[in-house]
């Protein structure tokens, strides 16, 4: 009993400080748990992405935050592994008590975190994964995506490729789900647009392990007039140089996904294959006022120009902030309602997070590769609004599993 009495002040102190903590809660920052591949080969994407994200957070906090609270982003490196990403998501949710999850770049990691978010009933705003599945086939109430899905890029390419003079196509792609989807959708859409469309064959290879010489040999044997390229990263670089050296690109017309994004285009340098039609990011040429402002501020702050990742990181934070403001709370159920159909401003215009399928209407660029001062750039580009190139909200909604729209 005596011991209890001596302990009493300690209990009182603990209770008191807990109460004080509760009172301080209103001023606590909103915590966003951000998972991405910050080390290893994908770091080239995630550093500009993180910069863009931080820029948006700083701007919002300078204005006083959202719903009276500052934003705080807690970054975690997923080590390029879906298994690690799930572990870190768990750490962020249970240990860091984040209000929502965000981020991811690779599709498998995005899907893994999405599955976790669904199981644990946490909101997850997927930033960069391209897979169609994340908002549609495997969509859920808890998952929203900012970047355009692969099928939108496919439709943009098809619109251009259908105007090519050639009709006999072949494809070169690393073996993965997103690129398999791209090829399948491309074939289906092209067949509808061009009666004379012929598919000569696929050349596939393990990701990051292309043997460019053998690949071009094999493609040549299919005798295509035009080629759909879905290689990226180191594979694209080796393919572009070997193809130029072997005179392959003089014989075919090329349509290529992603290659116009500075992340993939810049390392090509003088090897930039001129004339390819690509989806990408015309960062240097797109002089719309808001975008120019974003580019200038970003460049001044980070001493380098923005990459596509910077734009997406920036837009992701805007989407989250707008969703929380609309919800007036970070409570998961309210936040889902807040994010559904929320409109937010980005450097490339106003974007809607569609209520029906949790897909944002962020647009993209399509254009032709050219060389300027030894660097690859996009020319003849057009900006395509998401509303014009995405499947409609009704179509998207129909693809989602039962319960994803409750």
């Amino acid at each position: 009993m005596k011991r209890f009495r001596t302990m009493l002040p300690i209990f009182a102190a603990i209770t008191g400080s807990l109460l004080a903590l509760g009172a301080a809660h209103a001023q606590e920052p909103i915590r966003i748990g951000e998972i991405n591949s910050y080390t290893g080969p994908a770091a080239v994407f995630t550093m500009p992405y993180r910069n863009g994200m931080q820029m948006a957070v700083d701007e919002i906090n300078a204005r006083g935050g959202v719903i009276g609270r500052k934003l705080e982003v807690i970054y975690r490196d997923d080590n390029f592994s879906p298994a690690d990403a799930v572990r870190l998501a768990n750490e962020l949710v249970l240990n860091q008590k984040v209000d929502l999850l965000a981020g991811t770049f690779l599709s498998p990691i995005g899907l893994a975190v999405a599955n976790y978010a669904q199981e644990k009933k946490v909101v997850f705003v997927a930033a960069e994964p391209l897979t169609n599945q994340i908002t549609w086939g495997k969509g859920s109430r808890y998952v929203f995506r900012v970047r355009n899905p692969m099928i939108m890029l496919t439709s943009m390419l098809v619109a251009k490729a259908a105007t090519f003079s050639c009709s006999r196509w072949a494809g070169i792609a690393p073996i993965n789900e997103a690129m398999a989807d791209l090829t399948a959708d491309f074939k289906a859409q092209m067949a509808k647009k061009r009666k004379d469309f012929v598919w000569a064959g696929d050349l596939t290879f393990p990701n990051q392990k292309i043997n460019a010489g053998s690949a071009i040999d094999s493609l040549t044997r299919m005798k295509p007039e035009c080629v759909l390229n879905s290689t990226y990263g180191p594979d694209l670089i080796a393919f572009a140089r070997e193809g130029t050296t072997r005179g392959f690109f003089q014989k075919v017309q090329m349509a290529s996904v992603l290659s116009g994004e500075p992340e993939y285009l810049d390392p090509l340098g003088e090897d930039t294959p001129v004339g390819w039609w690509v989806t990408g990011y015309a960062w240097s040429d797109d002089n719309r006022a808001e975008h120019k402002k974003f580019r200038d501020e970003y460049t001044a702050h980070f001493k380098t120009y923005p990459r596509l990742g910077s734009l997406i990181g920036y837009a992701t934070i805007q989407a989250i902030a707008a969703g929380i403001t609309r919800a007036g709370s970070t409570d998961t159920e309210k936040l889902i309602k807040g994010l559904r159909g929320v409109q937010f401003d980005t450097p490339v215009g106003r974007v809607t997070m569609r209520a029906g399928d949790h897909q944002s209407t962020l647009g993209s660029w399509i254009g032709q590769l050219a060389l300027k001062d030894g660097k690859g750039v996009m020319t003849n580009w057009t900006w395509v609004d998401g509303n014009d190139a995405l499947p409609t909200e009704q179509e998207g909604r129909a693809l989602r599993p039962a319960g994803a729209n409750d």
Partner: protein
Amino acid sequence: MFDAAEIVNILLNGWVISATLFIVSSGLSIVFGVSRISNFAHGSLYMLGAYIAYSTVHALPRSGYSFIVATLVTALAVGLVGLLIEVSIFRRLYRVPHHLQLIATFGIFLIVRDVALITWGPQELFSPRVPGLAGAVDILGQAFPAYNLVLIGAAVVILIVLQWVFQRTRWGVLLRAATQDRDMVAALGVDQKWLFTGVFVLSAMLAGLAGALDAPRLPASLGMDINVIIEAFAVVVIGGMGSIVGCFLASLLVGILTAVSTIFIPQLTLALVFVVMALVLVVRPQGFFGKNAGASWEDPGEPEHGTHERADLSRRGWVILLALACLLPAVLPAYWLDTLIETLILMFVAWSFYFMAGPGGMMSFGQAAFFGIGVYTPALLHHYYGTHMITGLVAAPIAAGLAALAVSWFAVRLSGIYFAMLTLAFAQIVWSVVFQWFDLTNGELGILNLWPDPWASDRRVFYFLTLTITAAGIAALRHVVASPFGYSLRAGRDSERRAEATGINVRRQKSIAFALAGMLSGLAGGLMLYLKGSAFPSYLDIGTSFDVFVMALLGGLQSLNGPIIGAVIYRVLKTLLQTYVEHWNIIMGTALILLSLFMPRGLSPLIERFSARRSGKLT
């Protein structure tokens, strides 16, 4: 269907692939031949070569001479890096047990990767085309890049030079002598120290040269190290350890197979190399041209002072520990409970691996295969047949155990590095199948949404389930180690011939131990699946094998509690570093190197000393 020109073209493409692969592998091979170290960091030197070549070429005016200068400068620079590594780390490694050598070189691998990221940034860097060699030449009507002919030529020149050095110079003769019998060379008064340093520098220069030669063909990127080292290991094994000619022919074989499979069976390109490697190991373990150099790899090291703990916990101690473990869910926050479950599972894998590697003397590089089969079996059963958790947890060890039994039939005939390489090949084959057979396994997307049955969905229930299985499994293995079977296993490890002479069927004992270890790793894999709710190919990759290897052996080969201590420390260290430190690879790598160099008996002696002091015993 194929005319002569096309066949020639396919062969030439294969030869190009093989050219730099040969130069890299030859370096790995000679270091192995002389020092018996499987240098896991050799691919990192190749990667450094590519980056340094890029920087050097850009610092020089653009001409064909610059390319030659840059290539030579790179080879010398990487040679210098090799010198530093040899003098500071490798020199101390030659006398430590083999498993620690491997752990230390893995530490170097981690450090180099982060250093490259810090120095050159994450973007791929592509050296410019070589002036004068930018175009293509016409070979039987097909355009063939002129530079590729340089690569083919360089490989042949290196082959001739290395042959000359090894056959005609005094240094080469000493090297060959050291390859055959290190101790005899030392007894004859040759200063081994500088011989070894020389070999290591030569090997580093070869890696750097290969990186520099590849720089105008492949962009320098951060994944180069791991890609090349796995293939180089395969080439060295196929060609025969320490044989330069064997290395050349093996890389040619791998190159041509890769070129052919790119065209005909792209789904198999990853697995094919390892299938060939496994076949060679089964049919002719010493490779095409290797002499059976395995003997010195198997020296058992310091004689074992029994596997008994001097400071093992008493029975009462274990009971108290278990009781404490039972109380933990009441006090631990949810996240730490999850971490604890994961640590328990890792302890279990580490222990099953230790059982095979310690008392069994079988150092596998591919335990991830069985762990991964344990993850994937229930996942696939659920995916296709809708089975529940209990069925899954029964099926996981059965499938993994059967796979291990099948592999053991081939593996126990081999020992030392050959055994390790066969297990690596098997693990890589399983990994490639899971990774590339999209229709069956969903490939890199993995199989998602597998959670425990409702009765075990409460984390505390799942914790007790894991605790029960893990504790029972480890207790059973400890019991086996102390049983007659355990003693005969150790007898077979320490002296196969003597054990055979006393009537022990060593191969059968090893087979059983291997299968048992595989089975229990599979059970642990099953638990991991239901903890995480998903199956990914990364559970099967070489990184996982390495994690298991480190956890099991960090604690020390002689300690029954080593795997437990190792799993806890490794997991906690990795979790904390990965969560809070940006360049965590450097710290992890340094820690691994220091542990290997300065604590050759692992971490457990520290703890033994601590508990000995507590109980007042001084040993």
